[in-house]
């Protein structure tokens, strides 16, 4: 240590280098670098479309998941007017211990600037070990904005979380869902956004209680939409149960009409691959894939779709995939539950015939 400045004790001036303690030793002795962050902070989202605000399902998932990590506190932050306090009880039922209720009458609507300020202020107060948000439209803005304000890392769109001795192992799909990466964070809180539907919602524990802390807050200055209107078709495909999707293997417009007729009779939504949009046969709003919609229906009926990675990125989350393609080597056959090698046109005619037999159209 001779000659170097030393900050291990208060007797700097009289220290002539005879000191035997090193900074590192002291740090170890007193565990100076021990992590003091504790607890799991969840951004709790409410559904304000009801007269009584209710917890969104994804928030139930996240609270319950955080509860299962370890025995540390689960802290929820919810934004809303006074009436939102009823939702706090629900949060306790799913595993929250403390709810910070950041209050203002306008907080029924998402407000990026105010929510970033509110969330990071609570985080500064409670110093959580982890901080988790749902990866919805709002969370995807709020998460990174809050992370940057706190100067910490964030892992986006996780589908799996595991806690190992205080270290959060975050798993997320990448490259169109073909690869899964496991990521850890060097900074605290360890931040993640999680795709809705990644975890199960447990039974409510009606007896569970907790504490509500009220934090009135004035909205922060930020930008607001000039106008806002219900979207006409957005969200349709994402919510569809049955999707009939066509690729360039559909061959011709006559087959496309057949597919549309079947879709109408089955109550299915129509979708397509990029090549069909490029041909001008269907509108881009129907496109499924990396640059289009991401869908997860119960059944995805792929007609003449080869199944390129970019397309799979938009539909690999489907519960059941049925593929019809005349190329036995098409990638779509690899991921299909039912894969049929054959001409799409012939298949459609036979399916329509089957429909006519089973459910004769009312005349």
């Amino acid at each position, binding site marked *: 240590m001779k000659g170097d400045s030393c900050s291990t004790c208060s007797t700097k001036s009289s220290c002539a280098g005879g000191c035997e303690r090193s900074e590192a030793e002291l740090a170890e002795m007193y565990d100076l670098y021990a992590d003091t962050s504790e607890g799991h902070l969840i951004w709790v989202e409410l559904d304000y479309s009801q007269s009584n605000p209710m917890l969104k399902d994804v928030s139930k998932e996240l609270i319950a998941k955080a509860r299962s990590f370890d025995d540390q506190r689960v802290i929820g932050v919810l934004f809303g007017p006074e009436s939102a306090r009823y939702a706090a009880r629900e949060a306790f039922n799913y595993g929250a211990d403390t709810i910070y209720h950041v209050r203002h009458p306008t907080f029924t609507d998402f407000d990026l600037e105010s929510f970033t300020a509110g969330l990071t202020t609570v985080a500064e107060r409670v110093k959580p070990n982890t901080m988790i948000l749902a990866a919805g439209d709002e969370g995807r803005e709020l998460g990174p904005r809050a992370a940057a304000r706190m100067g910490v890392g*964030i892992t986006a769109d996780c589908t799996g979380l595991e806690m190992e001795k205080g270290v959060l192992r975050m798993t997320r799909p990448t490259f169109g869902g073909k*690869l899964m990466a496991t990521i850890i964070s060097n900074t605290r809180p360890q931040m993640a956004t999680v795709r809705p539907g990644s975890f199960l919602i447990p039974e409510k524990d009606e007896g569970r209680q907790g504490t509500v802390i009220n934090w009135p807050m004035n909205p922060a200055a930020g930008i607001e939409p000039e106008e806002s209107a219900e979207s006409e078709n957005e969200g349709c495909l994402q919510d569809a149960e049955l999707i009939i999707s066509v690729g360039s293997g559909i061959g011709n417009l006559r087959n496309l009409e057949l597919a549309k007729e079947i879709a109408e009779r089955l109550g299915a939504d129509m979708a397509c691959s990029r090549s069909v949009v490029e041909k001008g046969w269907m509108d881009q709003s129907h496109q499924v894939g990396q640059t289009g919609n991401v869908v997860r229906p119960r059944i995805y009926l792929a007609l003449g779709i080869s199944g390129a990675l970019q397309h799979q990125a938009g539909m690999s989350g489907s519960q059941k995939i049925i593929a019809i393609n005349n190329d036995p080597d098409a990638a779509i056959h690899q991921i299909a539950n039912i894969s049929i090698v054959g001409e799409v046109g012939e298949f459609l005619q036979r399916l329509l015939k089957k429909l006519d037999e089973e459910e004769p159209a009312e005349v």
Partner: protein
Amino acid sequence: MKILLMVKQVPDLSASGMDDGKVPRGGPSVLNPQCEYALDAAIALKGEEDEVIAVSMGPPSASGSLLRCLELGADRAYHLCDPDFAGSDVWATAKTLARLIIEKESDFDYILCGQRAADGETGQVPSMLAELLGIPQVSGCHRIIRELAFLHAWRGMSGRIERFELGPKALIAMETGCNVHRLPSMEDFLAAKRKELTVISRKDISLEKSDCGLMGSHTVVKGVHVLTESREGIKLHLDDTSSAVDAVYEAVRRRDK
């Protein structure tokens, strides 16, 4: 009006297989699809007096994407290229981009970028960059128009369409748009070669080594594995049997509940 266009070069998924589960590096690469939307929008907004400056961070090969921006109408470009930038996570990336902007082009009016990259698919950098610069953001946009010095941006948010009116010093991230995907003419190609493409190293923007690249990153990838599909598939042939059609009919009618 000065518009900064942040773009990323990504591996061309349509050209490269990923059979062994390895992400192809050094293979064919393209301008990230959502950055194409931002490029289109920036060029559409650009008037006579305006300047569009493309910025990209990446290995030497990423200059290809910047060249495309220059060919299609950007006026000049910065290429953040330094081995010290390698391995950046979203935080280190946003920090490096923010530093360049503060050091070199702090008099910008608007920043345009793609919402997310086709390789990492995180979509975090636009928000983090806006926060580090302390400016408002509108993400997930699909349309921008200009009204004098102001921009109007539309986006879909939880089933609603919102329109924002933005004054200078704001960031817009494009989710989709009108993907014209123009091909540059020979004239464009030659013009681009005369435009200024500045390569920027870590020292040029006085960034500490510990503040960028792998060292400056807050997240660490612990492992990557290929997702093996565990779907129980049944294979049928349309010619052999009518059971194929029957199986599909049963499945779609039951909705497989």
